């Protein structure tokens, strides 16, 4: 079952901090379904993916799929 992470209403950088915390609790290949309406989330999530080697996909307005690519 996919992990849901509801960060609606949270301001930057809290959604990214939450993703960074939750990604440790899933295995490589698994994903997190993230909800976030902070204007910086998409930009910072892309930068986060580049810096940490994980993957993200924009699923819709305020909706993202974060996939763990590597083993800790």
């Amino acid at each position, binding site marked *: 079952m996919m992990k849901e992470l509801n960060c609606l209403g949270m301001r*930057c*950088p809290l959604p*990214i901090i939450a993703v960074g915390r939750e990604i440790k609790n899933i295995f490589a290949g698994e994903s997190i379904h993230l909800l976030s309406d902070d204007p910086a989330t998409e*930009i910072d999530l892309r*930068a986060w993916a580049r810096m940490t080697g994980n993957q993200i996909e924009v699923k819709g307005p305020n909706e993202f799929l974060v996939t763990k690519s590597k083993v800790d």
Partner: protein
Amino acid sequence: MVHITGNFLAESPLSPKAREALADAIDQGWSDPRKLAHSAAKARILQEGALASLAQNLGVRTEEIEILGEPALGHFYSIGGLLRPEETLVYSSVDRKEVFAIARGHQSSAEVGVDSSGQIKGQDVQKFARSQGVLALQAANGETGVIQDIEALIAQSGDLRIAADFSSAGTRVPLPSRWDSAFFDARSWQGPQGIGILAIRNGASWRNPLPHLGNTRTPQSVSLPLTIAAAVALEEWRASDQVESVRLRALSKELRDEVSASIENCDIAGKLEDSLPHITSFSFLYVQGEELLRRLELSGFAVDSGSACTAEDLQPSHVLAAMGVLTHGNIRVTLHHGCTSAEVQSLVIAIKVAVADLRA
């Protein structure tokens, strides 16, 4: 009260020589240079000397420059004077907010993107080469320090007139071979706040974009003492900047290398070799920019930030966003003339401690 030992903000205090010139000018240049009185004649001589000095040091003709008491308006004068209502304004995604505001108020405008190192995409500029209009062209970015290849971009711009923005680059980037207007801010050479210098190239198709009476190009209401202080600061700056630029670039390299080697998940905007020697923008993953500023302030270091949590409108920096750089946990470090290696080393330690604390 926290004692600030290291000023790494964009602003800096006036040098003793510029302060002295300012004080003298308040005594000698208080009159309106446009009047007939003896005191006005004295002010006129001081004004002419300041304008000649500024023009010479900026590489333009004296008759080409206008002094503005509100630098933020300089972008409007520079661009708006060249742009006709039916024409297109071309600007970049890393331009200043003032330029975005002008674009929003104009009926035809086009934003061109930048790559991940902050360089404007020349092929996007080239698409407008046959258009009638103005290219707003930033010589260097004030947030990241990234310098544009302005000669190459101008070569690709075809018929567009060039409104060059030197407000951050100052004299550290030479004027291009073709320009129509160029705008400078005295703060870029550690001069006083509140002095903008607009150069309008002789023969340029420029007209005053604001309602006006008479034939003056700008309001002429600027403070003469501040203008003189700006001219003195620029002379002083030019006398030492060739050596200081090399030294500050080496310090910036030290700063970038040490921070990125000792703090993981740190994003640096732009490459130093393509940037002004004195500006570095760091973004630290999982760190709140406002808290980081506070921690550094408590350690005695003042820096700027482009993070959303430090912005008035709570929006992330459009410059960092356009480059795809992390926008949170951002600090901008500006090295001024005279900054020492010991100060930079102390700042590096303070950043390391603050980031580690905030991530714990």
